[in-house]
């Protein structure tokens, strides 16, 4: 009780602090220096109509490379931590029903196509490599959930993940080699609003999509394996 009161006391202070801090940040006002620049120049400089995407992939592409790395890290770390950790416990488990199994059989390819659609159109729509990859992985998640003993091939996942990551870095290095700047856009800008536009953005999003897809799949598989006992 005293602990809770103390916590409440702390919360009141922190809350008052945060509140008084955030209200002094102007809401809804024009304030951005860099944002204005991106809006004005995204089409001219990158050919991408989606300013967010241009920022994510080009202007602040380095963040995204880091973000990809973080996800990679999560997958790697999770696999490392959970590998061969759990003791086998005997536990009765319900098998999934036929309806789930068959239904997911049909939905799975569709999920892959949909995921591909999302990461291929990242520069035109709010999608991108991450959501695309997640949708692909969710296709696999369906299989994990609804198909008894379904297992993605670890070797393939590993190789795809590695190759995708290396390709991303290579794309950056090609930019460095051709234009003297890492992640430089060495492809043409194309016509705005077309699939083939925005230079290396779709290329990078393909790589990210594949990478995130395989990583999240591996991640889910790891989580599932550790909980599946017989």
């Amino acid at each position, binding site marked *: 009780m005293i602990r809770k009161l103390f916590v409440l006391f702390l919360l009141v202070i922190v809350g008052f602090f945060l509140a008084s801090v955030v209200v002094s940040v102007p809401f809804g006002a024009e304030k951005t220096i860099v944002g204005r620049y991106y809006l004005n120049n995204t089409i001219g400089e990158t050919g991408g109509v989606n300013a967010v995407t241009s920022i994510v992939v080009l202007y602040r592409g380095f963040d995204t490379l880091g973000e990809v790395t973080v996800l990679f890290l999560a997958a790697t770390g999770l696999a490392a931590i959970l590998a061969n950790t759990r003791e086998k416990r005997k536990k*009765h*488990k*319900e*098998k*999934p029903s036929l309806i*789930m199994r068959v239904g*997911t059989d049909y*939905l799975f390819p569709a*999920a892959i196509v*949909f995921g591909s659609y*999302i990461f291929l159109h990242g520069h035109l*729509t*709010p*999608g991108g490599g991450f*959501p695309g990859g997640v*949708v692909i992985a*969710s296709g696999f*998640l*369906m299989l994990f*959930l*609804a198909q008894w003993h379904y297992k993605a091939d670890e070797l393939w996942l590993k190789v795809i993940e590695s190759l995708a990551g290396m390709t991303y870095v290579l794309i950056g290095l090609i930019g460095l080699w051709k234009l003297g700047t890492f992640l430089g856009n060495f492809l043409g800008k194309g016509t705005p609003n077309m699939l083939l536009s925005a230079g290396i953005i779709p290329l990078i999003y393909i790589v990210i999509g594949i990478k995130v897809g395989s990583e999240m799949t591996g991640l889910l598989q790891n989580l*599932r394996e550790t*909980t*599946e006992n017989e």
Partner: protein
Amino acid sequence: MNWIIVLGLIALGTVLTILRTALGPTASDRAVAVDSMTTITTALLVLLGLLMDRYIYLDISLVYAALAFIATLAIARYLEGGV
């Protein structure tokens, strides 16, 4: 007017499902209520897309529907003791 009626109905529906989620009484009841709520939300997203004239809402709606389906599947599998 159209919008008020349509959105009003949907809002009422959402409230009802939220109530059921809160009331339960079993975990299955809550899961069922949430599942319905996601369906309603999928439709709502499409409708809002029309209202705000944003095509991208359709993509969002589709992703949402897909993820909601998988979430329901996961919850169901969990409830029946399959994962």
